[in-house]
């Protein structure tokens, strides 16, 4: 049964140096506030897992929290590059960053396998691309019935999954709607989970398109209104597209980035 606690307490309890952490949210419901708390607590050597690193991982990488990144698309959506990510990969700043690179379909299925208690997932993917040559985590697998060769990826089972949702009730049941991405899979695949929510209500009244994660399948819930900004929470906020544009300039230069983080996050 998930208990509702302050964010700083939940992060201190659940996220440790060296952990593998999946902070998911496909453009929508990205758990920025939790990511910022991880930065403030100075976590190090994290393996960051996320389909679309987005600005949240650009910030964690730029602040030196990450040792390794598992991802499938590392850009600033609709804008261009993630400069801190590029600086780490191209110039090893602020330190070297190992990368494990997949396609969206590959990571999504790796989460599904993780949530399903399976060691691997099978998909029609990667064939003929240069991706399999860059990681041992993409292998061929043969159908035992047809003999056809397909592709396997190992399950992703993060130490911690961190997601943002619209609402929780007092028993820690979490409700999210709109674009729900891979959040359910990430939470169910993880050993521990932290969910930040816009509000805590007495009862979760049913809503079209909403999914509910039962409180007994979640570790901690934190009330963090606006916790997805500059991403958004359908029904509570809208995406701050101007900030995504502004980030292109803020993040391009190391000093500008550091100053911005000092002023707004630390």
């Amino acid at each position, binding site marked *: 049964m998930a208990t509702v606690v302050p964010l700083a307490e939940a992060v201190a309890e659940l996220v440790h140096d060296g952990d593998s952490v999946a902070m998911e949210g*496909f*453009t*929508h419901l990205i758990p920025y506030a939790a990511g910022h708390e991880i930065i403030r607590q100075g976590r190090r050597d994290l393996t960051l897992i996320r*389909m*679309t690193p987005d600005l949240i991982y650009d910030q964690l990488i730029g602040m030196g929290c990450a040792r390794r990144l598992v991802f*499938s*698309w*590392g*850009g*600033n*959506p*609709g*804008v*261009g*590059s993630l400069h801190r990510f*590029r600086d780490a*990969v*191209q110039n090893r700043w602020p330190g070297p960053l190992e990368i494990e*690179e*997949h*396609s*969206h*379909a590959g990571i*999504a*299925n790796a989460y*599904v396998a993780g949530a399903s208690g399976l060691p691997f997932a099978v*998909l*029609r*993917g990667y*064939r*003929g*691309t*240069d*991706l399999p040559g*860059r990681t041992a985590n993409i292998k061929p697998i043969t159908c035992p019935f047809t003999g056809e*060769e*397909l592709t396997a990826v190992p399950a992703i089972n993060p130490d911690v999954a961190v997601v943002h949702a619209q609402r929780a009730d007092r028993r820690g049941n979490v409700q999210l709607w*709109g*674009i*729900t*991405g*891979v959040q359910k*899979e990430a939470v169910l695949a993880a050993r521990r989970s932290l969910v930040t929510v816009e509000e805590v209500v007495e009862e979760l009244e049913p809503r079209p*398109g909403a999914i509910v994660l039962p409180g007994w399948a979640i570790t901690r819930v934190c009330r963090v*209104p*606006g916790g*997805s*900004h*500059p991403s*958004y929470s*359908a029904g*509570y*906020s*809208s*995406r*701050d*597209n*101007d*900030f*995504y544009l502004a980030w292109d300039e803020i993040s391009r230069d190391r000093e500008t980035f550091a100053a911005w983080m000092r002023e707004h996050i630390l």
Partner: protein
Amino acid sequence: MTTAPARDDHDHDDRDGGRDGRAAGAPPSGETAYTSDEMMTVAAARRLDDGACCFVGIGLPSTAANLARRTHAPGLVLIYESGTIGAKPDRPPLSIGDGVLAETADAVVSVPEIFNYWLQPGRIDVGFLGAAQIDRFANINTTVIGPYDDPRVRLPGAGGAPEIAASCREVTVIVRQSRRAFVTSVDFVTSVGFGSGPGDRERLGLRGGGPRTVITDLGILEPDPDTCELVLTHLHPGVTLEAARAATGWDLRAAPRPRETEAPSAAELAALRELTERRPPDRSARS
């Protein structure tokens, strides 16, 4: 985030088809002026049949698909990898997960489902891809420029592109034509076009038909049915074959008589500009 390469170094503004496109040659008399990006977007929109389902990436593909919906293809089904099926946005979404997509969709499904139940089985008619580099067999690189382990430019990577390229019934590529983008050999194969030629897709078990059209700001290329090599079949108004060859890193083959693309009609331009000039209000959620 399938189709957006890095903005700088590999310029391809993926928010607005009309922004930094070069001005096209003198427009045919009696028509409004348009940019080469506008010509490219309109040409892409025309390729979409009414009633088809289209797996759309952000940027020019999304602009083109929404333009088609507003002009000749009102029944076009837009599918975004964020899980929105049948989205009907009233403005081009600024991200793959723009709220307007979920609000207007016939169905919103999880990201695993959109790839497994909808893309992978080959239900999607058309996939739209962008490219940082493309070769004569329409293999695409959106991963790195230079060596993988010491890249000159680290690009965003694969996103949904490898499986879109593998599984859609056909693929349309939209990319500005230049020697930097049209290369003899891509630095990294992110998405497979025709591999090294005929039979490769079958050998790899890729069930979709592969690239059928490459639309650039200069013209249109289509694979030769026998050799799979891209052949220039159309030139946009005011563009010469020499200009297209000069913007291609390999010895570009052209059809005996490349046809001239029909210039954007006033209606097409009006619809496109209405789309691209409509900027959403600042809806900052800071509080």
